[in-house]
């Protein structure tokens, strides 16, 4: 029997216990002790529901054999306790065993208890547990006793809620700690492999990710494939056990261990890593689940790989597990690859919460890959710059050398003309000497000596000609040529490219155009640059129109002109104003010198270059060359 005042005392005691500790087991044990000692009963038990809410386990008890009672698993709706849980109503029975709902558990010796009180522990509308009281005596539980136990039930519900929140926050804290440690570790290295290894370790480490295996695949942009890059995980259950034991022992200096371990590169030899590195899949929709993860930027938690439409039969067979999860690797909204995890050795189901954590790791991995990529690009650019600088120095040296050799060549040329010229005269003069000298040996020798001088001077003159041709001042070499011939030669170089890009060429030439003096190589260079620009801007095909014609210049002199038009949509105004600036370019691979070289060459030919920009339609380049350059003009 419980008096009113006594009941209040018991409840106060229970509340004090409920608020004194966060450990659920300890709290429940203490509550049971209070109930057992303060209420006149022979046995008591607190059942709690499992995660799914379908089964109930004894979490704390009194008067029952402890070891055995902990193993009891009660189904929802079964027995009196199950009924209370399902109906969420208290039940008080004088003779429990006579009740049709009674289910006998012989191992706890319930048969000795006759009267029973069972109240549900409710959290909102959900039954999360049951408290049972048992007495050997057959007798009614009083209304105050029933309401006291209901109040205790409410307290227990509160304890459970707190404990769950606490556990959750502990998990979150652990996640945060591990993520922090991982990001610290990742920042210590710019080496891609090390960074990735650290992240995969985080994923497979007991406390946070806790996955058995993790595999990382990255996109190869050039080949348009998804390639296996690295995998971490034991090759056998024995190895798995060894690693988990080691990891749990190292919880304190874990990060140092990971960083050291990354350097040792032992993972490289694992069968799993070697297998993953051998994998390569084309980035084609429907190829398999990894490719779909990348293409659709979705995460997947696969529970039955063999019967999942996206997994792909072959991959399902090779991966060797029926349940796994994939998340895309992202950086700057761009997909870089995919991470796959599974629990091959402990077969634990992958919870959504774990997947959420995995996504965070994937973000880190994305950054690592992106950083490493940027760093590599920086190194590349740097070495490119250095080699460009060297080239510049080299070409400056060559230019200086060219000028010097031109100078030297000129100084040598005049004396050489004299030497050679007089040697020739000598040869001639000997011929006209009186005939009796001609039979003598000395005359023969003089003839051959002067012949040698003439030949050697010829050789030197040829040599000087070559030097002057290659030296800077001698490079411009003009000759008579038909402009249209040059145009045809230049167009020919782009024939295949234009056919592939579906570009039509329209070519018109005015009849009877005079030939003009040009440096073929230089003017051809101009044409190549202009055609290159025109074709480059017509990615989707179009029309290339080339015309050669005679024009009259304002000053009255005649010009020979040509125009090159494209249908590439024209140049935006802010770019147009810069197009002749050296080093300005909109192309990924270009020096930005193309048009400035064109202008330089054309102005060296006393010509002009104009560009007509029709936004939305295309660009027409006009080049006018003075007919003063024509052969006819020169001759007349």
């Amino acid at each position, binding site marked *: 029997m419980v008096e009113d005042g006594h009941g209040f005392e018991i409840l106060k005691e229970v509340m004090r216990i409920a608020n004194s500790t966060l450990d659920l087991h300890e709290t429940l044990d203490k509550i049971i002790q209070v109930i057992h000692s303060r209420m006149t009963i022979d046995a008591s038990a607190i059942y709690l529901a499992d995660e799914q809410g379908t089964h109930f386990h004894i979490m704390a008890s009194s008067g029952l054999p402890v070891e055995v009672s902990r193993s009891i698993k009660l189904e929802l709706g079964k027995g009196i306790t199950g009924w209370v849980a399902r109906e969420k109503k208290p039940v008080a029975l004088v003779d429990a065993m006579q009740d049709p709902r009674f289910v006998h558990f012989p191992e706890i010796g319930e048969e000795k208890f006759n009267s029973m009180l069972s109240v549900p522990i409710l959290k909102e509308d959900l039954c999360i547990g049951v408290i049972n009281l048992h007495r050997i005596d057959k007798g009614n539980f009083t209304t105050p006793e029933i309401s006291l136990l209901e109040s205790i039930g409410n307290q227990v519900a509160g304890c459970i809620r707190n404990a769950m929140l606490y556990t959750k926050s502990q998990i979150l804290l652990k996640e945060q700690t591990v993520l922090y440690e991982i990001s610290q570790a990742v920042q210590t290295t710019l080496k891609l492999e090390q960074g990735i290894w650290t992240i995969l370790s985080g994923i497979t480490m007991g406390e946070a990710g806790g996955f058995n295996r993790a595999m990382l695949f990255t996109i190869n942009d050039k080949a348009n494939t998804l390639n296996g890059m690295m995998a971490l995980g034991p090759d056998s259950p024995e190895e798995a056990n060894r690693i988990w034991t080691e990891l749990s022992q190292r919880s304190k200096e874990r990060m140092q261990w990971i960083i050291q371990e990354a350097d040792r590169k032992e993972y490289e030899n694992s069968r799993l890593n070697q297998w993953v590195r051998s994998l390569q899949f084309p980035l084609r929709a429907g190829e398999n689940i990894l490719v779909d993860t990348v293409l659709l930027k979705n995460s997947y938690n696969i529970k039955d790989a063999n019967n999942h439409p996206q997994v792909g039969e072959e991959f399902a067979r090779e991966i060797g597990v029926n349940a796994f999860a994939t998340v895309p690797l992202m950086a700057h909204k761009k997909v870089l690859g995919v991470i796959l995890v599974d629990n091959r050795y402990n077969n634990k189901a992958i919870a959504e919460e774990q997947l959420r954590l995995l996504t965070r790791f994937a973000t880190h991995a994305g950054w690592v890959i992106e950083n490493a990529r940027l760093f590599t690009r920086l190194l590349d650019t740097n070495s490119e710059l250095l080699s460009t600088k060297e080239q510049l120095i080299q070409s400056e040296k060559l230019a200086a050398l060219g000028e010097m050799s*031109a100078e030297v*060549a*000129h100084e040598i*040329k*005049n*004396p*050489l*003309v*004299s*030497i*050679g*010229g*007089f*040697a*020739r*005269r000598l040869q*001639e003069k000997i011929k006209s000497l009186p005939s009796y000298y001609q039979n003598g040996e000395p005359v023969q020798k003089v003839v051959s000596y002067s012949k040698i001088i*003439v030949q050697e*001077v*010829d050789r030197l*003159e040829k040599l*000087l000609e070559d030097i*002057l041709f290659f030296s800077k*001042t*001698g490079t*411009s070499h*003009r000759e008579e040529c038909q402009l249209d011939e040059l145009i045809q030669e230049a167009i020919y170089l782009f024939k295949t490219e234009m056919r592939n890009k579906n570009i039509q060429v329209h070519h018109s030439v005015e009849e009877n155009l005079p030939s003009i003096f040009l440096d073929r190589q230089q003017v051809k260079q101009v044409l190549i640059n202009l055609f290159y620009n025109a074709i480059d801007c017509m990615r989707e095909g179009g029309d290339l129109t080339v015309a050669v014609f005679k024009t009259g210049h304002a000053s009255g002199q005649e010009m020979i002109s040509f125009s090159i038009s494209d249908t590439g949509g024209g140049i935006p105004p802010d770019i147009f104003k810069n197009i002749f600036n050296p080093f300005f370019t909109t192309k990924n691979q270009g020096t930005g010198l193309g048009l400035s070289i064109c202008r330089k060459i054309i102005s060296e030919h*006393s010509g002009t270059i104009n560009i007509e920009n029709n936004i939305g339609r295309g660009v027409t380049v006009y080049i006018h060359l003075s007919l*003063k350059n024509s052969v006819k003009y*020169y001759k007349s």
Partner: protein
Amino acid sequence: MKKILVVDDEENIRLLYKEELNDEGYQVEVAASAEEALEKIHSEKPDIITLDIKMPGMDGIELLDKLKKDNSNIPIILCSAYGRYKQDFRVWASNAYVVKSADLGELKVTIRDILKETSSN
């Protein structure tokens, strides 16, 4: 007999040209500078001039310019050690441009052609 004025700052070249062209049957006068050439043109009234470009003082192209401005009709053959002056548009005012060589064959042919052309006009 046609008279040729050879303008060159190098004494040996002048001597070479003079002897070779004498052998060809021309009367040859020489000048060691553009300034001297102007005097000789005035006094000797040559039928044709071979003119070196690179000379101290007034150079060959400047002399060519001056003669053209003075409406001189004397044909002029520019002679230079190398061909780079061919790109200077001012040389277009000359009748021919010959790159100097120990072999004077080209020069002799050019002189003959130009003299033939001018005498037929």
